[in-house]
């Protein structure tokens, strides 16, 4: 197992991995029953790192990976209080799309989709991205108007989106009830072919493996207990695994991000809400697109194993409790059956909750803060997973250059003091 040399030339792409996965390797191990090498190793916590990333989800790990791969910065630690992907990265409904409402948002999420498209090859890890198309239903004139607006904004940015009528919807999703007798008749939909679903655990593991291969240290079960700030700049991080001296800290902790920012003395415009999701028993493949209904607060997709994955809007009040509620599953079932009456007999296997760090304008908070060396990649609300690669890429660039990259310039923390918000509620509130 060979780990690539640290301190390589900046900007040079490397593809050195401990062991490349291949069909031949699979065959050989199948015959010899040899152990697979671990995808990343454990290290003792060092006393100092160039960069400390708090949060071992897709955002933190992607930032670590791109720091190493794109910028040659490999003296990096990723800390997580639990296991990798134990937060939002493993709790989302794995839907990807870029059909947002503002030009800033569309450009940003489209870059993420582009990175996701090449991710399996880049990381040598099968992330199972299925670009099956994404259908956002409109049940009233107001939604239809917003969808036309989104379609036009998308087209100007070169993103494939169009508004389609009930006949075309029925053709793409035959199990949908498109009759006008429904309680909320379907008037049209925003059809977004580049959208789809992916295996979210594989994305987390792929980035972790890629980062570790470049020399990044991944510390699981390591909780941050404090951040040392002196003279307005970061000096170090205190953790359950020991103190770390560092000049750069990235807060990529989503639902817990205000708790980490508090340690550095940075106030955030964020409130934490739980978001629940559920999955059914596997059934025959029948749903080839992602279906979203903003009016009914539900989104539905079918995994490769045949399970139906349902998501909804956030719970009605703030909380850090990741508990499911009967009220949620009752409401969800009603809404799903409203859309697809044929699913009456399908049983829900389990439900869960994740934490969403909601901002007032439904756009993230990214980049530098008033504390020098303390960066945030937060405010990910209900749309964080789909933005993982582009956020990692942009935050890595932000750390390496000290400048704010153009693609995240609209999402700075200072926009709330300046009053220049990026209103994405029309496209981000429910649909994913």
């Amino acid at each position, binding site marked *: 197992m060979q780990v690539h040399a640290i301190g390589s030339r900046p900007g040079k792409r490397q593809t050195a991995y401990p062991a490349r996965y291949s069909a031949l390797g699979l065959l050989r191990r199948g015959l010899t029953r040899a152990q697979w090498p671990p995808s990343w190793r454990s290290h003792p916590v060092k006393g100092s790192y160039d960069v400390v990333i708090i949060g071992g989800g897709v955002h933190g790990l992607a930032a670590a990976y791109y720091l190493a791969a794109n910028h040659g910065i490999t003296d990096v630690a990723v800390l997580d209080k639990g296991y990798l992907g134990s937060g939002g990265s493993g709790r989302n409904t794995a839907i990807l799309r870029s059909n947002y409402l503002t030009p800033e948002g569309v450009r940003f999420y489209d870059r993420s989709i582009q990175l996701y498209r090449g991710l399996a090859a880049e990381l040598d890890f099968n992330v199972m991205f299925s670009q099956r198309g994404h259908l956002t239903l409109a049940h009233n004139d107001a939604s239809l108007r917003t969808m036309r607006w989104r379609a036009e904004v998308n087209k100007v940015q070169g993103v494939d989106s169009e508004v389609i009528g009930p006949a075309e919807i029925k053709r793409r999703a035959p199990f949908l009830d498109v009759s006008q007798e429904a309680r909320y008749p379907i008037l049209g939909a925003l059809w977004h072919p580049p959208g789809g679903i992916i295996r979210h655990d594989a994305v987390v593991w792929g980035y972790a493996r890629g980062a570790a291969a470049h020399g990044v240290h991944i510390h699981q079960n390591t909780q941050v207990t404090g951040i040392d700030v002196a003279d307005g700049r970061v000096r170090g991080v205190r953790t359950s695994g020991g103190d770390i001296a560092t000049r750069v800290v990235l807060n990529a902790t989503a639902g*817990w991000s*205000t*708790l980490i920012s508090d340690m550095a003395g940075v*106030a*955030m*415009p*964020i*409130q*934490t809400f739980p978001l629940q999701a559920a999955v059914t028993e596997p059934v025959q493949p029948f749903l080839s697109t992602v279906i979203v209904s903003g009016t009914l607060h539900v989104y539905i997709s079918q995994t490769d194993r045949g399970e139906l994955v349902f998501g909804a809007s956030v719970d*009605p*009040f*703030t*909380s*850090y*409790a990741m508990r499911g*509620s*009967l*009220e949620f599953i009752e409401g969800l079932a009603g809404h799903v059956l409203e859309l697809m009456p044929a699913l009456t007999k399908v049983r829900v296997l389990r439900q869960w909750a994740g934490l969403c760090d909601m901002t*007032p304008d439904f756009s993230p908070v990214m980049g530098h803060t008033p504390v020098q060396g303390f960066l945030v990649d937060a405010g990910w609300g209900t749309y964080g997973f789909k933005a993982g690669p582009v956020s990692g890429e942009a935050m890595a660039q932000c750390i390496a250059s000290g400048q704010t990259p153009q693609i995240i310039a609209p999402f700075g923390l200072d926009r*709330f*003091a300046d*009053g220049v918000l990026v209103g994405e509620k029309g496209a981000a509130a429910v649909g994913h």
Partner: protein
Amino acid sequence: MILLPCAWCGPRDASEFHHVGEAVARPDPGTATPQQWRGYLYLRANPCGWTTETWYHRMGCRRFMKVERHTQTNEIRAVWAGEQGRSAGQQGRSAGQAGQSAGQAGQSAGQAGG
């Protein structure tokens, strides 16, 4: 879902209420700087622990109240009649009933399970 002890109606399902959000002191619009005003509009403590917040009993007595709730366990340890319902995140909701209850302010309505 949790049970909320309304200061007027007693224990009710939380789905009857609108969660207005953290109780934030409103600066004087006449003297506040834009910075202070935007801080009041957007910045929140978002604690993982006890917090004081405003709830509106929209499907009941349609009055505002203050609640002390633990955001990790959803336990509630105090509820009192709050007239300052026009605080954070209210989104233009009419607050016609909100001024009536000054006499009851500060009165605890006991405990209720989460």
